[in-house]
């Protein structure tokens, strides 16, 4: 389910798009005990020069945007994750084992021009 972006936000600029995958929709609730779903957020949006001078963009994004203005053949800076977080899953396998497993860098918390 796409979670709407707050009003007044420039939709086309680089930002985090939230997407929730419900394990119930996949039929996984029969073996996943917790959590109930998974945030499959992603980064998307434009990285104009002005964008690289604020928010959590990197310095080389600023330089790349500057060079793009001088020579359009230089690609623009791109919208990438700048903060990620792990998830843990508690589930049961087919052999009656109960497993708690964690996965690093699974959820996008923040995006920026990189």
């Amino acid at each position, binding site marked *: 389910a796409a979670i709407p972006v707050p009003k007044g936000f420039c939709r086309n600029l680089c930002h985090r798009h939230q997407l929730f995958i419900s394990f119930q929709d996949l039929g996984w609730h029969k073996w996943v005990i917790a959590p109930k779903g998974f945030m499959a957020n992603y980064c998307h949006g434009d990285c104009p020069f002005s964008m690289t001078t604020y928010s959590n963009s990197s310095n080389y994004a600023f330089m790349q945007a500057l060079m793009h203005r001088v020579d359009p053949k230089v690609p623009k800076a791109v919208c990438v994750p700048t903060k990620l977080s792990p998830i843990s899953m508690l589930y049961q396998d087919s052999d*009656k084992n109960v497993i708690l497993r964690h996965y690093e860098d699974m959820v996008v918390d923040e995006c920026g021009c990189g």
Partner: protein
Amino acid sequence: SEFQDYDFLQFLGLEKAPSPHRFQPVPRILRKIIRAREDAAASGASQDLCYVKELGVRGNLLQLLPDQGFFLNTQKPPQDGSCLQKVLYFNLSAIQEKGKLTLAQLTLDLGPRSYYHLRPELVVALSMVKDRGAWGRSHPALGRLLTQLSVPGPQGPLQFNLQGVAKDWNRNRLKNLDLYLEILVKEDRYSGVNVQRENACDRLVRSLHASLLVATLNPKRCHPSSRKRR
């Protein structure tokens, strides 16, 4: 387009979606850990998920293995104080992470706490099994005694940290773990009545639930512990 959950399962390290017949009881410790992690994720707090602070061990995978063993001498009435004898069997090859075993914790749940069955006092003895013998029939050849302790009554969970098992597993990837459990009734001249012992033993045979909680640490998935600079 149809969500390719096959790819997602593979990514999660699963061959295919598990299809458990029914849910196993989830120990409180695992629920506590996952709830703490979900709360931390919701509050945006950073987490080191390669350290299980509730257990004080490093590990990125916790796995609860059910006991698949068998009782011995169930048809004979208990003799010389022995209440029950059981070979506990844990399939260690089911451990899904090929890292280092950092925890092997055996839990013996003697049954629900109640005010009615406060007696008799018990002695719980746990030994390694050298040779299991014929499955389900002959008495196994015992190895070293791991522990022997008195418990006030036939109820509640007991936990044993089997660090030696973890070392053996890391050294030579044991396929399974066999343990021999004997529970004896401590003679008590006041209770003295056999009926109480038999009731307690019958209840124990029905309610005993054994499980092995293991933690494994896969260095590929876990950066070396970033020890806080003092």
